């Protein structure tokens, strides 16, 4: 989550699922936890019953989460920053912040450089030509020692707190209501409920998911709430936190292991073209503390990097060759994300594509563009347990997939793989738990594991390079591959690789051997940058030690029933369950909420029910901040240069919006967003497409998978859209009748669900209708054939992460007689 890291230091859900029960207030906004995560949502219900908690839901639709909420308010899709900035304004105006926490654990007191500014929707340093910021002014004023200057009174006009006050002053309740369409009284009531949790012993938890990320300002949506939580003192405490509810079973794991274009395992990053040498690379990754005494744990980057390269290339990575630095590919652009990939395909810049358990034909924006892109490939390899639309993109399925097979020259390989029930391995859940699972049965037919297939491709490639030679074979020929069965490595072996081992005897300062060469490491603290250790994913170090597979632990003991279960499986980092848990105690080390302490200072060390996310014997008097990954040691209200569109969140309209940005009409949408020219040409205007559409999951289905499962197909058999009664009446759309929903990019024909759960919102004085588009249908599987919501969605992503803007775009709707060819 590239939105939490800039604020707290790590991009992951801060607390555990069960810890939600400790909350006094649960705010579900930017997500629909009851539908998308029912079993996690049980802890919200538990909070209500056991802890008397209130549940507040802010959503364009009255969702199933709203159906059990204590308070619900509607909001126009894509305006969450305005809403939450209004909340921040309310908290500051009404002195409803946890002052001591904010002073000690956030950067509110730090002084920002002269030159920083914000005017007419733009921060200082904007380059209109490039559509990017030059971010040097978004930083602190440093003293002689290179530490940021501080004003604990917050009176300095350039203290972060003063700047924040000024920044949010525009978000009055009137303005919030004007932008969001949320009635003022409802907005204010929610502000009051949130404000109550500024008490040190009260906690609010924020549960969110793709409802916030899938916007062109997605990362900033989340950051705004992260700031609210910092102001309320709700980070690091029981029942608090920013709980990013990840959508897929191991998407946290895939992100942890760095399967993103610019990432390496453990949140290290690949070099850029500008980082010509290893020294250049390391120079930008020194993470020198910006306040005295701070941990700034990323200072150990080189240890992680060297250990990783040793794991990859073994003896071939040496100090002399800079640990094989040049064997890593360098990036000439920030990201080669999926939107970029399909842009490249459409321009004939790609020849091959491998889809492993991923179905972009349905899952990515603008299905027409995806199909055109795939059609231009020379070859496509799909690896999946199921018959995906992607693997059949070339097949004519009628209006839902009007492909001209004869004209498509792509070679397609459809490779059958095992599923979860047919393999061993670990998955990382949203709360960062690594849980091992066991094979229950053999795969059907000739299906093989992804490990076997990837190994098969690798071996054949390596063999070709050995026999034929070819371009730059070094990393291929030198890749470590010392598995018992080279054609099918055991998951157990790979897990141990990630944990890491000593390559030579490791000694402590006294000279005593702590680890013999070849032994598994106990944790990342043992990693070194001299090549004597290796670890495939440093944050996982500790998951499989000499004591065995920690991920397979099954002791559910839960001290004080507080929702930690520290002996169940294993959590990164270092089995810490609640991130930043040092912040659960005050500066002196006493818990803010004595009823639910997590860790506290006993005079000699930190004790409690969780592993301290902190030096275990670091005295409170040393003033080490609780956000140990941050160079300041504190949480960032002001994000410095970590976000592309500004250090403070600002409301920008979605790329397709029915309204004008009333705050700054000249800067309508995110000024730092990346839009490809052809995609911009495919944006619709409100005059042609007057209604706001938003796509989402239904609880009965999981993405495009469960339409292959009979039971789920029975539970929600057919594609439909949700239309409010007012709009349906206006358009003459009857309950359950056929409608055509059009965007600039295409149309879907499906059934209409006319509902009371979506009501028109008054935005800037005008009624605004929202249409809900559930996403689960396609042309393979057990459910009725459908188009898929992404026929409609725009190909534009969040400016930081390129997460597509699925949650707010424009459509039109009309009543029709039925599907047509």
């Amino acid at each position: 989550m590239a939105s939490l890291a800039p604020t707290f230091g790590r991009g992951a859900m801060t607390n555990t699922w069960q810890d939600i029960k400790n909350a006094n207030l649960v705010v579900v906004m930017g997500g629909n936890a009851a539908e998308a995560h029912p079993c996690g949502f049980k802890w919200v219900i538990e909070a209500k019953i056991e802890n008397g908690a209130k549940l507040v839901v802010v959503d364009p639709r009255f969702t199933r989460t709203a159906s059990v909420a204590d308070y619900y308010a509607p909001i126009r899709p894509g305006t969450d920053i305005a809403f939450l900035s209004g909340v921040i304004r309310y908290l500051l105006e009404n002195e409803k912040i946890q002052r001591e926490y904010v002073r000690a654990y956030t950067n509110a007191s730090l002084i920002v450089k002269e030159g920083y500014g914000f005017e007419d929707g733009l921060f200082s340093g904007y380059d209109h030509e490039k559509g990017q910021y030059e971010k040097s002014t978004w930083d602190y004023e440093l003293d002689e020692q290179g530490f940021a200057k501080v004003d604990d009174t917050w009176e300095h006009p350039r203290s972060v707190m003063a700047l924040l006050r000024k920044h949010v002053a525009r978000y009055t309740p009137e303005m919030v209501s004007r932008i969001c369409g949320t009635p003022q009284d409802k907005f204010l009531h929610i502000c009051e409920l949130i404000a109550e949790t500024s008490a040190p012993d009260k906690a609010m938890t924020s549960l969110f998911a793709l409802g916030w990320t899938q916007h062109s300002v997605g990362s900033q949506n989340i950051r705004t709430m992260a700031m609210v939580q910092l102001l309320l003192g709700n980070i690091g405490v029981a029942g608090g936190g920013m709980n990013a509810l990840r959508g897929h079973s191991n998407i946290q794991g895939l992100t942890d292991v760095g399967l993103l274009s610019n990432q390496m395992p453990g949140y290290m990053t690949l070099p850029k073209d500008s980082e010509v040498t290893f020294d250049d690379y390391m120079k930008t990754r020194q993470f020198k503390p910006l306040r005295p005494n701070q941990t700034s744990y990323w200072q150990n980057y080189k240890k992680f990097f060297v250990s990783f390269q040793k794991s990859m290339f073994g003896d071939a990575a040496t100090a002399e060759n800079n640990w094989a630095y040049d064997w890593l590919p360098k990036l000439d652009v920030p990201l080669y994300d999926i939107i970029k990939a399909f842009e490249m395909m459409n321009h004939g810049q790609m020849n091959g594509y491998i889809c492993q358990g991923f179905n972009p034909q349905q899952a990515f924006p603008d299905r027409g563009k995806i199909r055109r892109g795939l059609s231009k490939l020379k070859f496509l390899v799909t690896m999946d347990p199921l018959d995906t639309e992607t693997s059949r993109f070339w097949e004519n399925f009628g209006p839902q997939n009007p492909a001209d097979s004869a004209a498509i020259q792509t070679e397609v390989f459809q490779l059958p793989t095992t599923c979860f029930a047919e393999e061993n391995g670990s998955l990382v859940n949203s709360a960062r738990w690594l849980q091992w699972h066991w094979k229950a049965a053999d795969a059907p037919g000739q299906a093989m594991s992804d490990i076997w297939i990837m190994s098969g491709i690798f071996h054949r490639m390596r063999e070709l390079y050995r026999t034929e030679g070819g371009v730059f074979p070094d990393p291929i020929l030198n890749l470590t591959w010392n598995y018992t069965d080279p054609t099918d490595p055991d998951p157990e072996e790979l897990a141990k690789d990630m944990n890491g081992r000593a390559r030579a005897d490791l000694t402590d300062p006294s000279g005593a051997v702590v680890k013999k060469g070849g032994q598994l490491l106990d944790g990342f603290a043992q990693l070194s940058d001299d090549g004597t250790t290796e670890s495939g994913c440093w944050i996982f170090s500790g998951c499989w030690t000499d004591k065995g597979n920690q991920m397979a632990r099954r002791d559910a003991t839960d001290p004080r029933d507080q929702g930690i279960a520290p002996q169940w499986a294993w959590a990164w980092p270092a089995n810490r369950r609640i991130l930043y848990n040092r912040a659960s105690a005050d500066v002196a080390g006493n818990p803010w909420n004595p009823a639910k302490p997590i860790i506290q200072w006993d005079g000699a060390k930190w004790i409690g029910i969780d592993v301290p996310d902190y030096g275990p014997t670091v005295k409170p008097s040393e003033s080490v901040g609780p956000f140990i990954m941050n160079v300041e040691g504190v949480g960032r209200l002001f994000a410095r240069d970590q976000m592309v569109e500004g250090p403070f969140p600002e409301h920008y309209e979605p790329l397709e919006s029915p309204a004008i940005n009333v705050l700054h009409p000249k800067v309508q949408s995110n000024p730092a967003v990346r839009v490809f020219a052809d995609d911009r040409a495919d944006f619709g205007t409100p005059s042609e497409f007057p209604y706001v559409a938003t796509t989402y999951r239904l609880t009965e289905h999981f993405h495009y998978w469960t339409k292959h499962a009979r039971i789920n197909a029975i539970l929600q058999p057919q594609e439909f859209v949700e239309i409010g009664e007012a709009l349906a009446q206006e358009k003459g759309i009857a309950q359950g009748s056929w409608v055509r929903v059009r965007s600039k990019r295409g149309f879907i024909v499906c059934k209409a669900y006319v509902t009371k759960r979506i009501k028109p919102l008054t935005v800037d004085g005008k009624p605004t209708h929202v249409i809900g588009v559930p996403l689960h249908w396609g042309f393979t599987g057990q459910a009725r054939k459908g188009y898929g919501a992404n026929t409609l969605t725009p190909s534009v992503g969040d400016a930081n992460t390129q997460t597509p803007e699925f949650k707010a775009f424009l459509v039109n709707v009309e009543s029709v007689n039925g599907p047509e060819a």
Partner: protein
Amino acid sequence: MSNLQSQDYIRISATTVTPPAARSWEDQVAKLIDVTRCIGCKACQAACMEWNNLRDEVGFFEGTYDNPLDLDPHTWTLMRFTEYENPKGDLEWLIRKDGCMHCEDPGCLNACPAPGAIVQYANGIVDFISENCIGCGYCVKGCPFNIPRISQADHKSYKCTLCSDRVAASLEPACVKACPTGAIMFGSKKDMTDWAGERVIDLKSRGFENAGLYDPPGVDGTHVMYVLHHADKPSIYAGLPDQPKISSTVEFWKGLLKPLALGSIAFGVVAGFVHWITAGPNEVQPEDEAEANHLLASKGRPTADPSRSIAEETP
């Protein structure tokens, strides 16, 4: 079924003897459906289908989240969704898990003509025993909640068994186990009633003044109960009967009419017999034959041969 001891039953359909009360039945079970915690995710439906190996046809979207549209032999439980605007004008999405209520006084069992096709175990579960079911559909008429459905494939009646197989193996029913939010709980009827009381207190504190437990006395209570936010208006929950009871038509049919009918038939037979004994047969007399022959002869028609008596016949 045959190897269950009779004490394990409270009631058996179409029997004329009541099982003896050899055991105390304190441990009656109940499923408590807390509608106020339910998120309508249909996990219960999925778990029910999976556990009981039921798969309906894949249907169509018909302008409702209720899928399938109704209970059927493959759908023993079904979420029913109602968008309700309360008097304050606020929207409530009322979601009720529909299915067998396992009545203490089961209308289906009362109506059933097939011995042992419907039983009520000592723990209160009302179960359909397919091998004894004749598919007549009387249970459908007997049920005050419109639950049983007759299969067109095997002509047997189906409904929720409260997972009697799982309960017998000391497991909770599949739907109960699955329910993510704990909106479905299972335990002894007393515990469930107590727990419902706790829930009602909580709900009243959250502004639901009419919150309450639905355990309708009209059927002597049920082994599936609801906690409702608006217990004063059960029917807003997709037509949950306000005051369910076995239809008086069915009561009369399965009650008074049975002895009345057999009695009157018996009376008819006995009356005939008494008449036979007292009055005897009405036989044609020789005078009748003579008079008749006389008339026949007067018209020149043949008469019976006196040597062959055709008057003698046995009935």
